[in-house]
């Protein structure tokens, strides 16, 4: 297999899926009508409800859904099972399930007056469903913080060429906020200055890496070490320099969580978009042209299929169901449904725009996951950031860019995209914390207290967890949200007396798969950490972390069963002709 062939297969499947399946559902089942008034027109307030051009909305939706998820998921899965299962799931997932959810949630919101997904859940299923959905979101955010914090600290600690670019990102972010909002400077000038500064720092990074390595060595001299149990069952250390970079990530995210959003989080995100866009476009072009310009780069070196059960050290990692929670974004992700309903759905000018915006951006996101999969497949080894960066470095080398700089750009792009999500996750966690505990404990409404508590939770999760399990629980929470979104779409279709089968079978698959994955995750943590390591005093932190993750998994299973039961009740209510709306609590 080579990169061009993989890309061609991906593009052909995506084209066929969009033209012959998605379009058919849109015209024959949903019957999108350009003459029907959308909420953006009916409730136009010039703010949240505002008709917007579909090209703009496509870009907005794509940017909102395509972040670190498709990259990390594809890389982790290829490492565990080989590139072929990952490729098949990415393409089959997006064609049969992923676009159905994004598009379905968007159309449902459009036809339900622009209601959010939680409000629709409240009305269609039961008030309890809304509460459970909010708890899902809480778990999802917590796991994002744990998994991404782990990735970031590892990437910054292991690659001394990266930190300079990230420090510059923080500085350039502040500068961009100042230039745009205070000095009222032109967006194009601001973009050239801040993106240019960040790229320059990224490319200078390799030149100063020995100084950063010396800093790491000096920090490690403090000798503070915490042990964790890796996915292979082996006990490994978090070094002092790892914890130092974890604190750096927390400090970076603290600014994002506490400063006004225009001052820091939003400009940082904006700069991240350009760095990532350059990397994606360059990487995809390099992957496509490698066969002609530099054939040695184009061939996959990772095995197509490794093993059905990738578990080691007593743990289980069977292809089904674990692959389907390891790769969430890129194939299907529940979070997209939230954005589709609250964000984009309220801005659609015509109902017919939902297809290119909702389904089109989901299909496009798969290309990002495909790039990550190709990067790991040509790089051949490594995990997470390392594999992605090495692959991107090789793709950019096709155009003559020195692999040192190409890899540095790949690393920085990866870290930037992950850290921008992490800072926003910490910000949102602070809001949730204030919302949940503000009445009981007024101090919780203080933004600094809320952020510090959230940051402490993040550090605990990172230091007590194993990346692969954190990532898979994050995926499980995400996929369970996807099942819920699909369940809502099914109920809405039943309510509208339309055929729900295009959403029903994906929902059943995701529901069963996610519950099975949670059971396996709990088993793995119990067997490899709690049973084996609880007698070792130096591993008490890892054992407590494993117990906490088991409890989260059990919560996800219980929540899924509750929602399934309530949805069944709602279905019976609709079929019996009673009011479709759920009874009050």
């Amino acid at each position, binding site marked *: 297999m080579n990169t061009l062939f993989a890309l061609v297969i991906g593009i052909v499947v995506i084209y066929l899926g969009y033209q012959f399946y998605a379009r058919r559902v849109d015209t024959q089942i949903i019957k999108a009508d350009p003459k029907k008034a959308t909420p953006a027109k009916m409730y136009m307030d010039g703010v949240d409800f505002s008709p917007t051009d579909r090209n703009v909305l496509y870009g907005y939706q794509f940017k909102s859904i395509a972040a670190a998820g498709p990259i990390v998921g594809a890389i982790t899965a290829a490492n565990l099972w080989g590139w072929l299962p990952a490729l098949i799931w990415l393409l089959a997932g997006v064609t049969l399930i992923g676009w159905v959810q994004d598009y379905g949630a968007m159309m449902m919101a459009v036809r339900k007056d622009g209601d959010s997904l939680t409000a629709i859940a409240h009305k269609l299923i039961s008030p309890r469903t809304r509460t459970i959905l909010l708890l899902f979101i809480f778990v999802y955010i917590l796991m994002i913080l744990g998994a991404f914090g782990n990735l970031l600290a590892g990437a910054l600690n292991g690659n001394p060429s990266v930190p300079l670019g990230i420090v510059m990102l923080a500085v350039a972010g502040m500068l961009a906020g100042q230039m745009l909002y205070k000095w009222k400077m032109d967006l194009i000038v601001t973009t050239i200055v801040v993106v240019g500064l960040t790229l320059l720092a990224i490319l200078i990074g390799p030149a100063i890496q020995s100084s950063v390595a010396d800093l790491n060595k000096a920090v490690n001299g403090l000798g503070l070490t915490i042990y964790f149990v890796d996915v292979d069952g082996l006990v490994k250390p978090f070094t002092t320099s790892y914890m130092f970079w974890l604190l750096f990530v927390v400090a970076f995210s603290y600014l994002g969580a506490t400063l006004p959003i225009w001052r820091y989080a939003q400009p940082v995100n904006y700069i991240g978009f350009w760095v990532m866009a350059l990397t994606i476009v360059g990487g995809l072009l390099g992957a496509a042209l490698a066969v002609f310009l530099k054939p040695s780069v184009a061939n996959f070196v990772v095995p197509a299929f490794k093993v059905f059960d990738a578990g080691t050290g007593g743990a289980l990692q069977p292809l089904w169901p674990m692959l389907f929670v390891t790769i969430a974004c890129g194939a299907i992700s529940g979070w997209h449904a939230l954005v589709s309903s*609250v964000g984009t759905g309220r801005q659609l000018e015509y109902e017919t725009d939902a297809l290119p915006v909702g389904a089109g951006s989901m299909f496009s996101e798969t290309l990002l996951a495909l790039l990550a999969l190709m990067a790991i497949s040509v790089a051949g080894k490594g995990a997470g950031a390392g594999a992605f960066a090495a692959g991107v470095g090789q793709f950019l080398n096709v155009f003559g860019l020195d692999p040192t700089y190409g890899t540095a750009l790949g690393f920085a792009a990866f870290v930037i995209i992950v850290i921008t999500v992490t800072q926003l996750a910490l910000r949102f966690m602070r809001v949730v914390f204030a919302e949940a505990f503000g009445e009981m404990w007024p101090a919780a409404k203080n933004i600094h207290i809320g952020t510090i508590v959230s940051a402490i939770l993040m550090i605990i999760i990172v230091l007590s967890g194993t990346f692969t399990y954190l990532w898979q629980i994050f995926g499980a929470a995400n996929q369970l949200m996807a099942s819920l979104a699909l369940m809502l779409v099914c109920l809405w279709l039943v309510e509208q007396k339309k055929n729900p089968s295009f959403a029903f079978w994906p929902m059943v698959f995701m529901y069963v798969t996610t519950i099975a994955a949670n059971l396996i995750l709990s088993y793995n943590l119990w067997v490899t950490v709690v049973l084996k390591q609880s007698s070792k005093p130096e591993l008490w932190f890892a054992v407590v972390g494993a117990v906490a993750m088991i409890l989260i998994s059990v919560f996800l299973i219980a929540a899924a069963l509750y929602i399934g039961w309530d949805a069944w009740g709602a279905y019976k209510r609709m079929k019996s002709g009673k009011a479709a709306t759920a009874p009050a609590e």
Partner: protein
Amino acid sequence: MQPDIAFIRNRISRALAAVRGVLYGAGAHEIVLYAVRLRSDMESLFILITLGDLIGVPILPPYYSLRLLPFLVPNIASWKRRVLRERDILETDGLDLLAG
């Protein structure tokens, strides 16, 4: 057969406009949305302090309210919709950037 230059030019300009739209949507739309929300928050407060009588809160002397009324009337309907609409936690600023 001569190529239809006007047709080709039209297709190219439409394609360029689409690319511009996508880039704007991905890069700058959220910034514009945020600015619009900030402005609407200010406007909401302004309407509240000038037209407090609407909800039974006489804040400014009616003379000033009456002088401002012609300028504010066009916004009152959307202001009421915006202020009275039920919101949930998913509408927190920046949440839309968390997906993926």
